[in-house]
């Protein structure tokens, strides 16, 4: 099975938030609609006397073994065979937030109607040879997307597969 995913190069992320709003613009996240499917967190640490500030852009990671799928009591979350993208059938969602608890990335977002919505990796755009909105906008090229075998070949972008630990790890540059 093909598995698409995001890559993320922490050395290049500046915390500019363009990906956050690009996601909202693509998905019409306004008013009662859910907030951005992507968000940016900041991590600061002092290394010796050197204060370092890092940013991390996070959305659904389209996990190989997505924990949200199993906990969904109505089986509304599925992984697409074509590209491994984790998608939700909003018609089935009952708004129980179990996925919110299961996801370590904070990816499930809730809409005004109480139902979950999430990043779908812009798979329709990918089908049309367009990049996901957040990747397309990224001013420094910190975000990428594609088949994960290809992504994992790029050394700098390996950071995408590590979550919180990479933030407390020793990345410089």
């Amino acid at each position: 099975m093909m598995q698409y995913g995001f890559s993320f190069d922490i050395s290049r992320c500046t915390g500019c938030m363009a990906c956050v709003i690009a996601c909202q613009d693509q998905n019409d996240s306004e008013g009662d609609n859910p907030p951005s499917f992507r968000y940016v967190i900041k991590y600061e640490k002092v290394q010796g006397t050197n204060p370092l500030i890092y940013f991390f852009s996070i959305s659904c990671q389209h996990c190989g073994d997505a924990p949200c799928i199993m906990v969904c009591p109505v089986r509304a979350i599925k992984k697409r065979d074509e590209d491994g993208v984790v998608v939700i059938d909003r018609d089935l969602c009952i708004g129980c937030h179990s996925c919110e608890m299961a996801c370590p990335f904070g990816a499930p977002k809730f809409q005004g109607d109480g139902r979950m919505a999430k990043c779908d990796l812009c798979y329709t755009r990918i089908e049309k040879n367009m990049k996901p909105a957040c990747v397309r906008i990224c001013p420094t090229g910190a975000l990428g997307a594609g088949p994960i075998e290809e992504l994992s070949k790029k050394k700098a972008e390996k950071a995408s597969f590590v979550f919180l630990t990479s933030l407390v790890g020793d990345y410089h540059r």
Partner: protein
Amino acid sequence: MSKGEDASIRRLIKAKIPGKETGIEIKKGLCSICNAQCGIDVYVKDGRLIKTEGTLENPVNKGRLCVKGVSNKQYVYHRERIRSPLLRVGEKGSDRFVPISWDEALDRIALRLNEIKEESGPESVVFFTGFPKWLRPFLKRLAHNFGSPNYMSESSTCYLATVLANRLTYGCSFVPDLKNTKCILNWSSNPYYSSAPQAINFVEALERGVKIIDVGPLNTTLSRQADIHLRIRPGTSGALALGIAHVIIEEDLYDREFVSNWTYGFEEYRAYVKEYTPEVTAKITGLAPQEIIAGARLYARTKPATIVTSASVTVHHTNGVQNHRAITALIGLTGNFDRPGGNHVVPTSYYHRATGFDTREEEFEQTKNWEEMAKRIGEEEYPVWSRFIHEAQAVSLPFQIMSGKPYPVRALVGFGVNYRMWPGSDFMKKSLERLEFFVDVDLFMTDTAKFADIVLPASSSLERSELSISPSRYAIWTEPVIPPVGDSRSDVDIIIELSKRLNLNDPLLSKGHEACLDFIFEPSNIRIEEIKKHPGGLILGGFPRTPYEKYKKTGFSTPTGKMEFASVILREAGYDPLPVYREPKYSPISTPHIAAMYPLILTTGARLPMYMHSRMYRVPWTRGLRPDPMVDINPKDGEERGIKQNERVVLSTPRGSIMVKANLTEYVPPGVVNMYHGFPGADVNELIEPDYRDPISGYPGYKSLLCDIRKSNGGDL
């Protein structure tokens, strides 16, 4: 259509895929939220903008966009957009207006302005433009045709002081040659936030192994990526530059050939920088002597090296012009002037774009000689500014409105005026109340527009046409991509119409926007009609690249014909000819008695990624990223004051206080606090005195003064 097909088209529409079946079309537009002029692909369905994306073929942004640009949908369709001309019926500032027709509005304006001109001379009417750039040549032409010398702009507090400083030393301006450099001395610029789509140049430089020295108190992403971060105390740039020069001269790392053949006043300069030993400089700047030496060596030994400054950070100090001169003096000192990979002199054309084209922009703008008009506002106070900068100095405007001296200012025709731009912004606000007649043209009913007698609705860049020519000579003429919101009109069309109603008899202007641009670009034989044939833009070919080392043929446009370490013009005007260092007017060293009560250094206005001055506050997407006014304070200073993250604090200077939230962060060093400007209800410019200014340019010392922060004990101030 079958059910399956229907669902598949719905999916394509939801994903906003352009094409016949979805009815979604991509149109080419320009973003005018900041001044970078990024190309945007506007996704339009049924006449409405549904999404924006960077234009791949536009070399300005190469498909990238920033957080602000991608918010264009909410910006353009904001419910606070003004939809028709408005006549104020309530008190000034009350926001009570009634809609009137364009005819009535323009006739009222023309009548009143001509009355005032009749009564007290054309100079009593001021023509001002805020952040919008594209209308500037037109507005200046209108002002001069009207007879007023008082065309002024937001550039009275941003950018032009760097031009002034560079002209004093080199007779010209220059740009960093990033593509060819091996070392970047980045002086207090945060390209990742101020012009994100262009910042890829820095990422690429890093990947090429270019050395980076970052100077500035703030800990930006570039600081983290840099080889050396010289984290100076705000306001001490000049001292650091002199200290670097000291090391370069002492260690014989300077370009003797360039210095002896092409500079003036070197001995004077050398004698002056002798004082700025690494130890002395370290004491002033807060750095360690070794850091200064290491920075100086890296910059001077790596060839070629370029200096990057920002539009205003180096000059937003009470010693701003001299600080900036001290920094840029290093370019000549190390022989990096107008050389590949150094700082390249590229003539600017059409609102400060370094394209290298010959234009008649000045001829177009300046329809009367200064001698034919009254003295400009600020001319007496800032003679050197007035000599180099062909605008009035707006920082003097509120004083002249209030005093009526040397002559009364009675009316203001403004485009995007924001009183919060001024130091002591409440003083500017008061002076607005004093005006007899105020017209403001804006997209939104701003706090400033509420003081206007008549407000005219301007359209956004996506509702009108605009020309952009980038430094890489890519030219695009945009057509409106969506219909104007409400009854709004293009700024230039408003100016042209106003010119007619004022009976100014300007045949060229009356011919319209395109004809005026054809006139401006005539010397380079660029015609709008040709550019129009390429809706996606084109590279203007057939023009020679701007060469390097032009000074070898032409010399420098300074009184001595050389680069001036000691400026003849400054000496004549009674200023220090050398790029001397002076402490900020308020600093722990210059005013220890004030520092005893206000021990923290306040620096303001550093870019946040989601805001562009005040214009993105009202946009829900960008506002959502930082909803509250927040002051950055080092965790150590926070701890000393018992302040926790997000707590309400009072930020105060001797002039006043504002209530904000605390943001504890290593972004600022201990002892320094950073506050973004222009927040309604928490405007930091109110804390700065209206005359806290640089004596040469008049620029406010926004980036270095004194303050204190304490925990709020409730609703007090």
